[in-house]
């Protein structure tokens, strides 16, 4: 169930929102809820990916939190121009494959 909350926003932004909802005949509360949900979702993605880059969480932990699969994870890294959180030091410390 939706619960009420109060926030203060700049007048010019409020005017712009009011104009838009009138023009598109939208319910202002429903519109603001949707915008807030989208913004929060994007912010959550950014926060988790920053934690991933700092190696505070793993790739699959990010996937679980954001409901992504590992392929979506790679696509999102590409869209944000981010790299895997593996460092050159890891590559240099990696073991050799055993002789076959």
């Amino acid at each position, binding site marked *: 169930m939706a619960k009420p909350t109060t926030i203060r926003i700049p007048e010019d932004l409020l005017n712009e929102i009011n104009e838009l909802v009138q023009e598109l005949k939208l319910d202002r509360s429903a519109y603001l809820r949707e915008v807030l949900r989208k913004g929060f979702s994007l912010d959550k993605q950014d926060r988790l990916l920053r934690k991933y880059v700092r*190696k*505070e*969480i*793993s*790739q*699959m*932990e990010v*996937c*679980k939190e954001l409901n992504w*699969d*590992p*392929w979506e994870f*790679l696509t999102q*890294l*590409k869209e944000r121009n*981010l*790299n*895997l*959180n*593996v*460092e*050159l030091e*890891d*590559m*240099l*410390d*990696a*073991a*050799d*494959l*055993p*002789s*076959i």
Partner: protein
Amino acid sequence: MARLVVDSSALILLAKCNLLEIVCDLFDVIVPKAVSIEVASENLVKNYPDAALISELMSKGAIKIQNPGRDRVPSPLSLHKGEKEALLLAINLDRSLFATDDGKAIKAARFFNIPFIVTPKIVVELFRLQKISLKRARESLEKLSIIGRYSPEIITDALITLLEKEDGKANNHKDT
């Protein structure tokens, strides 16, 4: 046959750079059940060719699914189920190598003193062991850069190592 315990990140990148099948031919590739679910569930198999390939290799037994056992490892780092089980398998299976492309899983492997390997190093090593050509190794590294999101620094290092090994081979041939 040498054992590779592989987590989801490495399994997907090996498939993406077209080396998963040869790795399965050369090594005993083992994954825990949690990893098989993370990368080859019915829904993923429908949507991603890599997942379909992984699923097929699992069905053929080229990728073995093994229970990591009941032991709990006291780790200072939290990991997701698949990464945790893969690490536990690598601890429990003697003389196995943990393949991962996740920085945090590597941190955990260092903590437990488990030998680990990352996919670009697997490419370089397959070339060193003369299992793939220089051309194929370069193509795989390109894929790891573009699709696999490996940093340019790591890909450059891997390419330089490839060329050094190629030069070494050429010089050896000259000497003989």
